[in-house]
């Protein structure tokens, strides 16, 4: 290599300075990004048809908190099977639970077109504990979804979250999610500052502008895979709250947390929400760290409507949808439905 002359140095320096200026300019232009299509759950729902499931709210052990399993038999041939608003699977291995729940909603191809770029958003909030502590989404639930996306012909499947305790790569490893996602052929994305794009939220009441991760904004399909767990400032963290992992600054939102969650959900509309309730954390959340806080439920709740999925998931904890402010706010903003009594909920017991 030749000597670096003064001219070369100045050129390089000018190019560097130019690049930084250009970056500032482009930032100022405010890249407008298309969001995914709005939810169309009307075609799938059948309003007025009362669910056969009974909504009791016991606080006991496994499977008690959910509607009892009833409707597992296939509909008579000849008549079209109505696609339920919410599919619940219970009692089985995570992979079987996820596959059956998604199949009931019309199969993964109903959500993931061939060639789609998919983002799967699990909850990987800390790097502190393994999945047994139920602070992070079950790795096999995430892995199965990645596998299914590729089976449907997805072009790419990226999995990401922005942990608040510990670093991303560390959390991906400790949670066990990285191993399952890589085995399924998916990509773990280390979320980096410059990928967050200033985004306006037109329908927002409080969170009118925030920085959102570009891959999540640009995804053809967004699959939301929260774990159902206790969270002291939002009571429970489920699907809607899980999307907070897509934005850059979260701590300053806590004085309007519930409104902010609802606002963000008016921007990010996952095509599919799969609530992992294989193991749930009943207290000490969101970080957990004690196995006595964990209950094994072997349950998965899937829906096109994140509000509906969250509403039903509250029953795992012996609560009602109205108990969560963000569900109440989201319902009144028209982001989804929380009137469980009017929703078509199909519950399937796998290992009956």
């Amino acid at each position, binding site marked *: 290599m030749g000597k670096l002359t003064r001219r070369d140095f100045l050129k390089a320096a000018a190019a*560097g300075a130019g*690049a*930084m200026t*250009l*970056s500032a300019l*482009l*930032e100022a232009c405010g*890249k407008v990004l298309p969001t995914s299509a709005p939810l169309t759950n009307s075609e799938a729902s059948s309003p007025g048809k009362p669910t056969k499931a009974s909504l009791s709210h016991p606080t006991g052990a496994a499977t008690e908190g959910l509607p009892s399993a009833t409707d597992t038999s296939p509909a008579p041939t000849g008549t079209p099977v109505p696609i339920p608003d919410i599919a619940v699977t219970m009692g089985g291995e995570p992979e079987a639970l996820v596959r059956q729940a998604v199949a009931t909603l019309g199969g993964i191809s109903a959500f993931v077109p061939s060639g789609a770029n998919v983002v799967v958003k699990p909850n990987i909030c*800390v*790097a*502190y504990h393994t999945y047994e502590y139920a602070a992070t989404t079950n790795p096999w639930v995430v892995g199965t979804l990645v596998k299914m996306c590729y089976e449907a012909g997805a072009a790419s499947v990226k999995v990401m979250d922005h942990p*608040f*305790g*510990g*670093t*991303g*790569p*560390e959390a991906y490893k*400790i949670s066990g999610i990285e191993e399952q996602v890589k085995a399924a052929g998916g*990509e*773990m*994305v*280390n979320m*980096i*500052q*410059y*990928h967050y794009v200033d985004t306006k939220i037109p329908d927002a009441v409080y969170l009118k502008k925030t920085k959102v991760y*570009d891959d999540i904004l640009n995804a053809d399909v967004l699959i939301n895979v929260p774990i159902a767990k206790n*969270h*002291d*400032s939002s009571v429970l963290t489920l699907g809607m709250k899980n999307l907070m992992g897509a934005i850059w600054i979260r*701590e*300053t939102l*806590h*004085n309007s*947390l519930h409104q902010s969650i609802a606002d963000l959900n008016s921007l990010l509309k996952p095509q599919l929400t799969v609530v992992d309730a294989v193991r749930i954390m009943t207290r*000490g959340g*969101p*970080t*957990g*760290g*004690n196995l006595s*806080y964990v209950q094994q439920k072997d349950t998965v709740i899937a829906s096109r409507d994140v509000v509906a999925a969250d509403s039903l998931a509250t029953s795992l904890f012996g609560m009602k949808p109205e108990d969560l402010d963000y569900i109440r706010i989201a319902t009144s903003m028209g982001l989804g439905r929380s009137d469980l009594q009017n929703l078509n909920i199909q519950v399937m017991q796998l290992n009956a």
Partner: protein
Amino acid sequence: MGQVTGPWIIFRKTVQYLALAIFIALFVWSRQDGGPATLINIPMRLDPLLILAHLAASRTFLAGSTLALVVILLTVVFGRAWCGWLCPVGTILDIFSLKRWRKKRASPADGWRRVKFDLVIIIFAAALLGNLTLLFFDPLTLLLRTLTTSVWPALDRIVLSIETVLVKVPIFEGPLATFDNLFRPAILPVQPVFYRDGILFAAIFLGMILLDLLAERFWCRYLCPLGGALGWVSKLAIFRRKVGTECKGCTICTDICPTGTIDPAKNYASDPSECTMCMDCLEACPRNQTRFLPEFSAEKWTDYDPGRREALLAIGGTVLTLAILNSNGPAKRQSPFLIRPPGVRETNPDAVDFTKCTRCNECIRVCPTGGLQPAVFEAGLAALGSPILAPRLGYCDYSCNACGQVCPVQAIPPLNLEEKRVQVIGLAYINENRCIPWSDHQPCLVCEEMCPLPQKAIQLEKAEVWDPDGQTVSVQLPHVLREICIGCGICEYKCPVSGEAAIRVHMPKVDVPF
């Protein structure tokens, strides 16, 4: 000197660049979940000044320290070959040589060479009294500190700016994703890190380079304490420079010698404790009169080697200075925010001065959050360069024990994760005047949410309070359970109150010595 060339010079430069590359590679590899500590620590353990001073101060012998014998033996055979062939700082000074702007024959008087020897005396005198502050000026710690606190964060910022531009161009999407997933985690900080005194450490290193304007290898000639220590060992070196009888006194060797130790007045002889064995004179001599031949006798003491009186003065000054330092404030009344890495308080009776710490900076380098920072004045002058946790800049990660694993002298004990998780490094206190629920009656609870302890050291009290309009509002007020708080500082780091956090980690409870 760039002009001289020949097989020896090519050989020497190859070794120099290789050694520098290995040093930087090991630096890059020192990270949480990075290379094994035994490899990462090789440069520090090779450094005899650092290892022997630590031995004198701590009176504990560590098996890994025997590596320093390699450099001592190298010096006994080849003199200060470390300085000319291996030292990364020496190589950097060669690369950034300011020869072109240097005035000819402007070198300071030879007498100034004694500074580095005096530094050696002071460092060892202080070490025997249990103080390692001046290892701050060991060349390896200086370089590692500069790379960690200024060069690498700056590099990260530059890469980030370039990426911010490139990400808007579609064709770069793939390469950027590959870079971010494969190379970024291996090379750059996982999350941006900030060192409050990075500019100071960068300025010190820049000053070392700028001193080259006064004389080539100014640092190595006059100041470097490691160079001084090795220089004294070189008095016994087997291979010494000899000038043949056919020397015609052309002064070429005198002019090119990077440490200016070839003296025409002494028949072009040189001082083995100044010679870095760079072989420039060997290759440059037009009559091949320079040879390096074995000799088995101790070299004589020179004018600038400190005499008995000067040594006694240095030792006396050290004792007096340490006495003054120990009688001032921080020694007894430590800063309320003096938070040491996990386990330090338990294993160091004197966690304030942190006498076992060699200031090597490895712990600061591996801390994934950037919470560990080199102290400047925060812990008193005697603790200059030692690691302290600054929770507003980064917290002690509940799933990390990297600092204790990497410490080459176990000044931070090598705890496993379970042991580390129960170390109390500080205690959190809420400032109720700034806390959002306490003073503004708004919901917040970020600190409670962030607390990594399974039993949560922050608990919420449901309370009815009056707002300014006289209405009763219900809020949840955070309280710290200090019997279980470990002081990791994530609450202070994440506290959404601007500026000073509304919850701050203070020093843990210690037995008050007065």
